């Protein structure tokens, strides 16, 4: 008997015309690792929320069909009732961490499901240790990196010993080694796992079955071998592939930014950078890669003039622009075109052209907060591109971006590459290989867990 089953599931969010899911019927057997793929907005996250009961209980909307989890019909069982049987790890750890201390965060779910008090601390510690994060016990959550926070969220889910573990793009914040180790841990847990991912290489290598969603419908529901054939024929961009060699620049122009012997430490913290060197020339795209906590973002901010190094020299020849990895920081104005125009003293003409470049033509009058997460990413990019910087620093621009959009972004970056220098901070070696002229590796500070 299937552990989780959806029968002709259709769901439409409130105040939205088109359904997020339409006629979805899938069955998930105990012990399976199911990989859910599909473009942004295809319904992957909604399917996971339906399997946890959050759809429709938390979101409202129009719900049709049936979802059963371990014999419980989600129309009757609320998400809180399913907690313990189902556990979910969401995409952004910042939006799910409640407590200030790691062990309290892991214990929260155990308290909610009524585990006897004496058993809670040892189970919380055991969960942290089971995913190689025992060393984080006692730490304050606000001092953790995004990668460490994501592990704490996984530990909080694992502590519940759920029969069904739902992971919504769980590795989007992690470097490749961290993401691989994370998914290996998940495989060893023995739970039934449904994982939605935009970097399909790693889950496709480990899963038993693949679901491919598009416009709320299931296009593919097959075992891995068959699914790989289908993907190769129909959606080749989703196929796992090795990173290609950087496409060496044809002509490197004058130096736009130079960093010499740069050192930096945040107040009260260890050195993040020590003796960093970088030479960025007009016309080239440089990918900056390295493990979580290695100082990539700090180096990018120093290159963009947002941080002052404590030692060393930074020389600019031109104007920098910096795209933060959090698109939520580009939601200051009431209209999309005004948001983009903020960087060009309110001039709407270049703002609208930038919106066209990133595929947001027609969105000018919308409120930035009404955009989906993928659309917000593009809005943020437009808000920086419109300033026509000589040095464009992009911090994780492919986080949560589907392969089709990544290809479009690569094309956009290459098209504008000649007139500027682009420093691309990324965890995505395939994207770096596709778009960069050269790759700069930065040393690791945060241990990769095993």
């Amino acid at each position: 008997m299937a552990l989780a089953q959806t029968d002709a599931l259709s769901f439409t969010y409130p105040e939205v015309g088109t359904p997020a899911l339409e006629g979805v019927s899938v069955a998930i057997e105990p012990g399976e690792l199911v990989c859910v793929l599909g473009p942004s907005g295809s319904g992957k996250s909604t399917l996971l929320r339906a399997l946890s009961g959050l759809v429709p209980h938390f979101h409202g909307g129009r719900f049709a069909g049936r979802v059963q989890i371990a014999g419980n019909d989600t129309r009757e069982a609320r998400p809180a009732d399913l907690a313990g049987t189902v556990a979910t790890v969401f995409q952004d750890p910042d939006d799910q961490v409640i407590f200030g201390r790691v062990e309290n965060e892991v214990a929260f779910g155990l308290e909610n499901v009524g585990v006897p008090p004496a058993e809670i601390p040892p189970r919380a510690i055991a969960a942290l240790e089971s995913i190689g994060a025992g060393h984080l016990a006692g730490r304050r959550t606000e001092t953790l990196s995004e990668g460490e926070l994501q592990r704490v969220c996984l530990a909080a889910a694992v502590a519940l010993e759920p029969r069904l573990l739902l992971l919504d793009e769980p590795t989007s914040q992690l470097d490749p080694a961290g993401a691989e180790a994370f998914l290996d841990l998940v495989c060893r847990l023995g739970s039934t796992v449904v994982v939605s991912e935009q970097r399909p290489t790693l889950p496709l290598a480990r899963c038993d079955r693949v679901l491919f969603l598009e416009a709320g419908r299931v296009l593919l529901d097959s075992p891995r071998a068959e699914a790989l054939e289908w993907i190769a024929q129909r959606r080749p961009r989703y196929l796992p592939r090795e990173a290609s060699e950087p496409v060496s620049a044809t002509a490197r122009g004058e130096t736009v930014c130079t960093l010499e012997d740069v050192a930096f430490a945040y107040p009260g913290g260890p050195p993040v950078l020590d003796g960093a060197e970088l030479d960025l020339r007009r016309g080239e795209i440089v990918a900056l890669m390295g493990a979580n906590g290695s100082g990539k973002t700090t180096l990018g901010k120093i290159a963009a003039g947002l941080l002052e190094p404590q030692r060393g020299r930074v020389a600019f020849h031109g104007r920098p622009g910096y795209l933060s990895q959090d698109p939520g920081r580009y939601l200051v104005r009431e209209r999309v075109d005004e948001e983009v125009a903020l960087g060009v003293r309110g001039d709407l003409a270049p703002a609208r052209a930038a919106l066209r470049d990133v595929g947001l033509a027609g969105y000018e009058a919308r409120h930035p907060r009404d955009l989906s997460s993928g659309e917000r990413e593009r809005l943020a990019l437009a808000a920086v591109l419109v300033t026509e910087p000589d040095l464009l620093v992009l911090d994780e621009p492919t986080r949560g971006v589907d392969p089709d959009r990544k290809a479009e972004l690569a094309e956009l970056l290459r098209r504008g590459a000649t007139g500027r220098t682009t420093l691309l901070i990324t965890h995505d070696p395939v994207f770096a290989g596709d778009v960069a002229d050269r790759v700069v590796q930065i040393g690791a500070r945060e241990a990769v867990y095993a």
Partner: protein
Amino acid sequence: MSPAPAFALLAGLAAAALLAERAASVAAIAAALLAVCLRAPQRRRWPYLVGALGSALSVFLVSPFVSHVGTHMVWEGPRLPVVGVLDVTGEELGAAGFQALRLAALALAFAAYTLLLDHDRLLQSAGFARRSVLAAGLATRFIPTLERDAAGVVEALRGRGVDVRGIRGHARLLSPLLAGSLERSLNLAEAMEARGFGRPGRTRVPTPPWSRLDRAALALTPLVIGLGAVWL
């Protein structure tokens, strides 16, 4: 010290500052709370100290001009429409200083609560109204998150060549920051529900037993309030 007795003592000191009638007593309470706040890391404490002491200074500077008490004239200025004669008396200065010290003591007690208390353990020790206590605890946790968001938005604006200057520039960010907080609180509520919050039969992590210092702090709290009301 455990957070619950520390919270009680801070609340007691704040109440004593409100009840006390001598400026020297309120000043002593404010100084004690300032000393406590200085134990927090410098990077975290400065916005709270600037806020607490800045707002107290504003009260001291503004209130003599808008009140009209006392006969010992210190300064007499021009007559303004609506406001009347601008003047400052010795009594007004004394009252302004007293109210400023009270405000400083209250703000510093809040700063000490935010900066130094372990809110997780405070939540755990609440034996009643857990939902309300959790809501209050989460609201407190959002303060540093809001600080981080504000810094992030300013940084993102600088990254596209927009400088945020002055009180007016920063005030314009309030609305988007609050909207962002509301969005985050919805996501957090969803994650909490998925983790079983609200399910009947909830248990609690055992809290460590109180030390002598904790018991002493709790015993001291009503004493401090009583002193504030009767003697200080």
